[in-house]
């Protein structure tokens, strides 16, 4: 219930998530892995994006490849580094979000730590506080990578800094909205998973087997295909091409996030600690 909600406690829980990532050994290791991965992404594909897109040799190839996927408009971006960044980030950040947010409550529940916390915060506050913490973490990571991508472009051509920063702001919002339901899905899986590894296994099965089952049943019963709205990221193919803009690109992830958080809240409320 909202009137039972203390924003102070939600904020305390969210802040502690940040401490968990930035000030614990396991958190710093995860962060290091993330930085290394993005260093490779920024150093190779993003840094060399200009050569690839503008070189006489690859220009036609790029047009054909991007055109085949309906992404030709990305070639017209003023900052090609960000076009390449966008292509990679929109698919990789949901995966990063799933991995980073894979232990929101499960290990605390199994260890019994949640029993100490639940005497000081309601279960709803725990769910939403942890979720908020993960949102802030993901937003920080997205922002850091975007700043790095803009800096790479600006080092090549300093006049790209302003248009790059403006575009990066737009991409930040797009990516932030894309990752919302993935983090919420993890909050939901965390309510019954016994470890972060198990939560990730559930995710693999969810994205791997359920679409097949829906496709199979949907072949006979078309209404079943509406269940595809269960899958976070189902709008990504639309979102990647700005030409295909529709409000659904934003509405679908926000509705999915709300639904998964509500489910997590109800499940947490009913579960034993």
């Amino acid at each position, binding site marked *: 219930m909202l009137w039972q909600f203390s924003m102070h406690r939600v904020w305390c*829980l969210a802040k502690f998530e940040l401490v968990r990532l930035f000030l614990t050994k396991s958190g710093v290791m995860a962060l290091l892995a993330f930085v290394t991965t993005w260093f490779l992404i920024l150093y190779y594909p993003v840094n060399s994006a200009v050569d690839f897109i503008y070189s006489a040799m690859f220009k036609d190839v790029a047009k054909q490849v991007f055109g085949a996927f309906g992404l030709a408009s990305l070639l017209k971006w003023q900052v090609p580094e960000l076009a390449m960044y966008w292509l990679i980030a929109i698919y990789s950040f949901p995966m990063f979000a799933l991995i980073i947010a894979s232990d929101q409550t499960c290990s605390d529940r199994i260890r019994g*730590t949640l029993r100490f916390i639940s005497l000081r915060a309601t279960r709803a506050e725990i769910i939403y506080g942890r979720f908020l913490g993960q949102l802030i973490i993901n937003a920080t990571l997205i922002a850091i990578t975007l700043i790095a991508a803009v800096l790479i472009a600006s080092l090549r051509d300093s006049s790209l800094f302003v248009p790059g920063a403006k575009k990066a702001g737009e991409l930040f919002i797009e990516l932030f909205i894309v990752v919302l339901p993935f983090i919420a899905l993890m909050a939901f899986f965390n309510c019954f998973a016994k470890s972060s590894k198990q939560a990730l296994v559930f995710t693999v099965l969810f994205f791997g087997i359920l679409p097949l089952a829906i496709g199979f049943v949907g072949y006979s019963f078309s209404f079943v295909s509406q269940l595809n709205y269960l899958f976070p990221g189902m709008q990504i193919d639309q979102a990647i091409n700005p030409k295909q803009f529709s409000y659904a690109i934003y509405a679908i992830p926000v509705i999915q996030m709300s639904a998964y958080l509500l489910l997590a809240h109800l499940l947490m409320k009913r579960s034993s*600690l």
Partner: protein
Amino acid sequence: MSCLIKAQQLNKFFGSNHALCDVDFEIERGGPVALVGPNGAGKTTLFSILCGYLKPSSGSVTVFGAQPASHKNLSRLSALPQDAQLDPRFAIAQQLTFYAQLQGFSKREAHIEAERTLELVGLSEVLKEKPGSLSHGMRKRVTIAQALIGAPEIVMLDEATAGLDPKHAREVRELVASLSTDITFILSSHDLSELERLCDQVLYLEQGHLQEHQSLNAEDNLNFFTLRMEQQQPDLIAALSSLKQVNSVINSQDKEYQISVQTLSGEQPVDIEILKLCYQNKWRYRQLINGRTLENQLFNDND
């Protein structure tokens, strides 16, 4: 006296296992309350329900007049749940400070509160340590410290002294005794002598049923003495029974006698008579206790 906890017809099933059966009791503000029972009796289940970790299958339970998991009870009831562990990734200070902040303390106040509670359990020096570097007993005392953060009105300690060495177990008992004027403690333990020393009220659970719900200072307890001897004395029962004010004597356990008495006017106090008898017969006694021991109340009466 105000009612802190009220349970009515409380039942809890785990599959076909009936862990709690129609449990009824009330706990009022005051001295520590003992929750006693053999393993598997339902003590931890009852603890978990009162803390809001578990929901009862049927019946009702209120803590401060609200549901156990209600936001109204946050920070008013705290607990040392059995087997619950602190997060091994964080220093003790970080975790206790975090808990204090959740209870509404500012960051600075929370740090002071963490130091204060650790000092209460004699562990000021482990502030910067992680739980993994502490012994089992030290970890237990740290979790007792977390239960004392702020100003809880009820503190539930499940097996608080289990695994502690005698010195620290005694310190925890002294801590409970010293704080029990402000806090109502509910203690679960297998150490009956410990509970006897600390508690005014006893809840005795057996196979999910509440067998006893009584005050240790109950009137009928005044009509008993417990005599502990250095050695088993074959003639002692007959000698004690010959005293005018003694109703009956039973050998409650090895070297221990439970004496039922009635006070007659114009006679010497019964305990003086008992001591005189020991002196005259050169029987060395170890202890003369007013009333029955908790162990005898719970087990000899139920036999």
